[in-house]
C-alpha cells in the first residue's frame, strides 16, 4: 500500500514535471505565429502553391528557412528531398508503325491507324507478330490465350475486353468485367510472357467502333492545350511499347474485319485459344515520349533525440505544403487563385509551430522527431509516397506519424481524427490529450482516411492518424483565403500535436495498428 502511494506520488511529480516541461514549448505556439505562416503561404503571390510551380519552390524555401532558425538539422546537409515529378507527352515525329507481310511493307499513320496508350514505353522494337486472342491468362477459368504460342521477343496483337462480354452467362463474370479485361493487366500479362511490344484492337464482335482510340495525348489533339498534361511520379516500372490499332491494321493482317470477328466468335463459343504466329510477318514499332521533369521537393528537418538508444527511433510530424494552384481561365473580375489557406497552409504552419515548440524545450525528448512538409499531395499523395519508398530514417523505427491537414476551420473546439479505428493506441493518446484541451472529437468519415499523407505511412505499418478540423464549403475553392481561417484554432490543434508527440517521443511507447478490412 505504502509502495503504491509512493509510486503514485512519483508519477504525480513526473506528470507535473512533464506538464511544466511542455509549458515552454506550448507557449511559443501562438495564434500570431500561425497567422504569420498562413498569411505568407496562402498569399496571392504564392499562386496556390501548385505542384509543380515556381511558387511551390518559394514555399519550400520559406519552410527551409524556418527550419534553419530552429535547433533542428537537415538530412545529409539538405533540407530538401527531391520528388521525381514528371509529365509525359507524345513525341509524334518519332512514333512509327510498319508491318511487313512477305515482301509487302505497309507504314501506318499515327492517330488515324494507331495511337499509343498512356502506359507505353519510350523505345523502339522490331520482331515478327503473334496474334494472342484477348491476351488473357486466367487459370481460374481454365483459359489461356498464350497457351501453345511462344511470344518471347515478339510483338503481340490482342483484342480488347474478354470472352462473352455481352453474354450474361459468360464465365468471365457475365456482362460485368473481370480484372482480365483491364488494359494494364493485359500489358502486364504480355510482358510476363516475354512480349516486347503490344498492339490492342477493339474486338469487332461486340463493338461497332474500331477506332485506334488509345490515349488522348495533347500532342495529337485539336482541342487540348499542350500544357494539359497530368503530372505523375516517375515509378521506374519497366514497360513496353503499347498501342491501340484500328481497322486498317486489322485489314492488313486478317484481310477483313469479318475474319477477325469469326475468330473472336470461335474463341467465345469454345473458350479455347485461337492464337497463332502471323506467317512471314515483321513489325517495327516505336513509341516516343517527351518527358518533362520538374523540381519538386519534400522539406525535411530532424530534431535529434537525447536518449542514446531511443534517439534511433522516430516520431514523424508532417503535412502537405502544396495546394492546387490557379484556375487557368480567369473570368473578368473573378478571383482565380486557390490560396489554400486552410488546405494546407494551416497544417504547414502547424508543423512549423510544433517544430518551434520542440526547439524551445530545454532538453530534447528521448526519441528523435522528424518534421516533413510534403509536396504533391493534391496530385495523388506523391511526396509522402516517395518519402515512404525512400525514407530518410528507417520506417520500421518510425513509431508514429501525425499528419496535419486543414486545421483552422469549423468552430473553435471541433476536431476530426481520421483513422481512429486502425490506430487504437494512438487514438487513445490523442483523444486523451484532446480532452485536456477541450477539443471535442468528431469521428472522421472512413474514406477520408486514405486521402492524405498519413495513409502512405499507415500502409507501411506505421501508426498514423490525420488530425484535421474537417471539410467545409470553401474546400478547394477560391474562397479558401487567409481571412477565412481561425489562427487560434490552428494553434490549439498544433498544441495537441505537440503534447501528443512530446509524450510519444519521451517514452518507449509502441503503438499497434489494425488492418483495414
Amino acid at each position, binding site marked *: 500500500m505504502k509502495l503504491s502511494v509512493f509510486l503514485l506520488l512519483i508519477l504525480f511529480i513526473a506528470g507535473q514535471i512533464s506538464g511544466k516541461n511542455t509549458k515552454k514549448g506550448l507557449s511559443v505556439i501562438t495564434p500570431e505565429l500561425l497567422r504569420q505562416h498562413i498569411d505568407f503561404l496562402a498569399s496571392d503571390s504564392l499562386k496556390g502553391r501548385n505542384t509543380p510551380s515556381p511558387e511551390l519552390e518559394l514555399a519550400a524555401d520559406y519552410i527551409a528557412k524556418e527550419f534553419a532558425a530552429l535547433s533542428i538539422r537537415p538530412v545529409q546537409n539538405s533540407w530538401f528531398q527531391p520528388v521525381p515529378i514528371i509529365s509525359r507527352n507524345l513525341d509524334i515525329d518519332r512514333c512509327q508503325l510498319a508491318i511487313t507481310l512477305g515482301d509487302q511493307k505497309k507504314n501506318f499513320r499515327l492517330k488515324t491507324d494507331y495511337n499509343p496508350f498512356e502506359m507505353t514505353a519510350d523505345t523502339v522494337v522490331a520482331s515478327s507478330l503473334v496474334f494472342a486472342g484477348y491476351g488473357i491468362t486466367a487459370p481460374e477459368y481454365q483459359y489461356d490465350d498464350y497457351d501453345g504460342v511462344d511470344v518471347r521477343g515478339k510483338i503481340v496483337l490482342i483484342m480488347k475486353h474478354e470472352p462473352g462480354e455481352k453474354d450474361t452467362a459468360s464465365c468471365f463474370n457475365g456482362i460485368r468485367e473481370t480484372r482480365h479485361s483491364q488494359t494494364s493487366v493485359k500489358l502486364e500479362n504480355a510482358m510476363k510472357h516475354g512480349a516486347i511490344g503490344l498492339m490492342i484492337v477493339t474486338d469487332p464482335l461486340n463493338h*461497332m467502333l474500331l477506332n485506334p482510340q488509345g490515349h488522348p495525348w495533347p500532342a495529337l489533339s485539336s482541342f*487540348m492545350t499542350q500544357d494539359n498534361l497530368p503530372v505523375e511520379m516517375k515509378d521506374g516500372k519497366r514497360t513496353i511499347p503499347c498501342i491501340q490499332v484500328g481497322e486498317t491494321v486489322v485489314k492488313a493482317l486478317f484481310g477483313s474485319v469479318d475474319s477477325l470477328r469469326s475468330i473472336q466468335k470461335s474463341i467465345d463459343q469454345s473458350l479455347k485459344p485461337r492464337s497463332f504466329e502471323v506467317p512471314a510477318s515483321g513489325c517495327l514499332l516505336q513509341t516516343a515520349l517527351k518527358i518533362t521533369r520538374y523540381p519538386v521537393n519534400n522539406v525535411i528537418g530532424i530534431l535529434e533525440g537525447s536518449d542514446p538508444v531511443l534517439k534511433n527511433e522516430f516520431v514523424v510530424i508532417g503535412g502537405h505544403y502544396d495546394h492546387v494552384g490557379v484556375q487557368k481561365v480567369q473570368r473578368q473580375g473573378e478571383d482565380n487563385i486557390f490560396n489554400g489557406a486552410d488546405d494546407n497552409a494551416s497544417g504547414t504552419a502547424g508543423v512549423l509551430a510544433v517544430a518551434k515548440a520542440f526547439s524551445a524545450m530545454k532538453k530534447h525528448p528521448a526519441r528523435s522527431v522528424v518534421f516533413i512538409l510534403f509536396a504533391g499531395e493534391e496530385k495523388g499523395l506523391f511526396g509522402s509516397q516517395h518519402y515512404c519508398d525512400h525514407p530518410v530514417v528507417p520506417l520500421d523505427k518510425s513509431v508514429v506519424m501525425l499528419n496535419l491537414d486543414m486545421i483552422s476551420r469549423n468552430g473553435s473546439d471541433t476536431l476530426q481524427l481520421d483513422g481512429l479505428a486502425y490506430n487504437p493506441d494512438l487514438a487513445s493518446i490523442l483523444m486523451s490529450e484532446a480532452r485536456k484541451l477541450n477539443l471535442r472529437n468528431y469521428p472522421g468519415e472512413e474514406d477520408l482516411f486514405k486521402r492524405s499523407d498519413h495513409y502512405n505511412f499507415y500502409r507501411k505499418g506505421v501508426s498514423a492518424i490525420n488530425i484535421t478540423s474537417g471539410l467545409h464549403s470553401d474546400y*478547394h475553392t477560391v474562397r479558401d483565403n487567409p481571412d477565412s481561417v481561425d489562427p487560434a484554432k490552428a494553434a490549439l490543434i498544433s498544441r495537441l500535436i505537440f503534447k501528443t508527440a512530446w509524450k510519444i517521443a519521451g517514452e518507449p511507447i509502441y503503438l499497434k495498428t489494425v488492418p483495414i478490412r
Partner: protein
Amino acid sequence: MKRNFVKTLFLFLLVIPGIHLYSQNTWLLKYQFEKGKAYDQISRTTQDIVQTVNGQDIKILSEIASTNSFQVENRDADGNATLLFSAQDLSVRSAAMGRDTTLKYTGMKDKVRVKLTPAGKSLSSVVVDSSEVSSIVSQLNMGDMRHLPGKEVKVGETWQDQLVVNKEKSAGSPIAMEITTDTEYTLKGSEPVNGKELLKIAFTGTMNMKGKGMQMGMDMYLEGTGKNQGFFYYDPAAFMIVSSEDNSEMEISVAVTGPQNLTIPMTQSVKSVTTFTERK
C-alpha cells in the same frame, strides 16, 4: 357450276386487296397526331461506360427504365402538333467499382411541352414542371421523337437526316455540348408485328460531339465520335411510331485543366428500346 363461280369470285375479291397491300411500294411517312389522344412511352436504356483514369479502366453499367406519357394538346393547320409529355416512373440502376445502386421514382411531376412538325422535328420545347430529379429526367430526352421524312417514300428508298442538338449545362451535366448526328434511313418494307402490318425502317449513323464546361474550378473539354444503328416500326394507319431500337457506340476524350490536369479516354455503348402505346 354457278356455285363454283361465285366461290372463285369471292376468293378473287379477297386476294386482290391482299396483293394490293403486299405490293404497295410507296408510303407516306409522317406524324399525324390527333388532338385529345394520349400515348404511353416505355423506354429501357442500358449503358456501358468505360473510363480510363491513371491507367485503370473503370466500368460503369447502368440501366434506366422509364414510363412517360404524352397528350396531344393541339394540331395546327400545318400539321404541327403540341404534345405535353409527363414523366411518370423512373428507375435507375447502376453498377460500378463493386457497388450496385438502384434509385426508383414514382408519381413524378416533370412535364415538358413540345411542338413538333409532321416530320417529328422540334419547333419548341418548354419545361412546364420539374422536380428534384430533373437532372436525371433531362437525360431521358422527353419529347424527342424519331424523325420521319414527312413525305412519301418507296420501299428500299433511303433518306438522310442531320440533327444538331445543343445541350446547355445543367445540374446533371456540367458540360454544354453540341451533338451532331448524321443518319441514313432505309424503308425496308412492311412486316406483320403483333397482328398489325407495320413498316420497318432501319437506320445507321455517325455522331460527333464537342463540349466545354467547368466544374469545381476546373475547365473541362470534351470531344467524341461514334456510330449508331437500329430500326423502328411505323404504323402507317395510325401515322405513328410503334417501337424503336437504337444501338450506339461512342469514343470520347475528356480533358480537364486547372487545379488538376487530366486526360480521360472514354467509351460508351448504349442500347435503347422504346415502345409507344395509344391509351384507349
